[in-house]
């Protein structure tokens, strides 16, 4: 493993976007930042800026209201990048799947690398998902 792929594994910066989730998964993502889980141990930092981010964490179902924002954020992230969907809503649409304003899972709008199911997903599962996405980043 080269020095660049090691560095990529060791320093994933996250961008978190809420597509309209109930905030359950968002609270779990933020829980991963607290002293109990402390994801900064692995060099993971929650960024507010798509231009600095390596991994896009999306919660909530894709919908007609903000899918352009989601695609815009994705396109603003420089390659190599990964997308992780957190929660059942983001994976398939979840309980909202046949609502008129819902498109469905996030993968209907942007390519998704890792799906983390759960309602809400546990912080441990989210960290596992990030590690999986990193494996994809380190080989690209």
């Amino acid at each position: 493993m080269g020095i660049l792929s090691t560095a990529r594994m060791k320093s994933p910066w996250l961008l978190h976007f809420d597509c309209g989730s109930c905030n359950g998964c968002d609270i779990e993502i933020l829980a991963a930042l607290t002293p109990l889980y402390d994801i900064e141990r692995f060099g993971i930092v929650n960024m507010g800026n798509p231009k600095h981010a390596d991994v896009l964490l999306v919660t909530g179902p894709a919908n007609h209201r903000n899918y352009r924002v989601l695609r815009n954020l994705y396109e603003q992230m420089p390659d190599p990048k990964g997308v992780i969907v957190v929660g059942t809503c983001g994976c398939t649409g979840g309980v909202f799947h046949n609502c008129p304003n819902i498109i469905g899972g996030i993968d209907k709008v942007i390519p998704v690398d890792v799906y983390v199911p759960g309602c809400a997903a546990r912080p441990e599962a989210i960290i596992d998902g990030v590690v999986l996405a990193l494996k994809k980043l380190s080989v690209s």
Partner: protein
Amino acid sequence: MSTGWLVGSAVVAVIVAPLIGGLLRGIDRKLTAHMQGRIGPPIIQPFYDVIKLFGKKPMVAGGAQMAFTYAYLALIITAVVFFALRQDLLVVLFVLFFGGLCLPIGALSVKSPYSQFGGHRELLQFLAYEPILLLAAIPIALKTSGFTIVSIFEYGQPLLPHLWITFIALLIALAIVMRKSPFDISGSEHAHQELVRGVVTEYSGPYLALIEIGHWYEMVLLLSILGLFWVTGSLWWLSIIIALGSWFIMLIVDNINARLTWSWMLKFAWGVGIVLVALNILFVNLRWM
């Protein structure tokens, strides 16, 4: 001191300064994490970050921004070289100032509102700390009868007992340069803020890595200037203790403070910083210190 020795020390400074700066940033993150009850990243984390950023695809918002990034790093390295060659302290500070100025100019060349705001606030930071840095050279020159760093070495006595008031004022400038709370208004190193990442919002990938390396140089240079306050005599190693001690004070100040407004920063830097330096100049002139 021979010319060959000086040139050698300049080459060593250019190579070693970013290593020290990166390591200090890593220890900074580790200590900050411990102060917050977390474990924190490994201390070589900043090097991972920079290597990763070099591997990202370059995305530039404009050619001017790219040019200013290179200018920022080149000018800061020039300032480090001048310092290692023991040149005029004022020249070092001016080159450092022009280098630092490239960052907000590059940020202002992009139309993004966050970048614009960050650039303006970075300029306000210059307005706050630059007078302190430049005025601080005056009491040093009065004591050592020369603006050059050589004259500080030839003075033969430590400066800190005479100029401790100036030293305190320089700590305020250091906090602003290191973007520590309560002065991290133009782009915080850690948390989210209302400006996203402020002045560096529009810099990404390899350009952000260059800025990060430039920032390490800047921090090490500022700490070295603080070290000049006890650089002569048999206790010369106190200069390292003083530099690292000031750095540690910055960490504590960062962790016990909230971010405050730019107007408060200007009032504090001018009202306290400049007044302290002015008092020191007065005392030195009256031969009280």
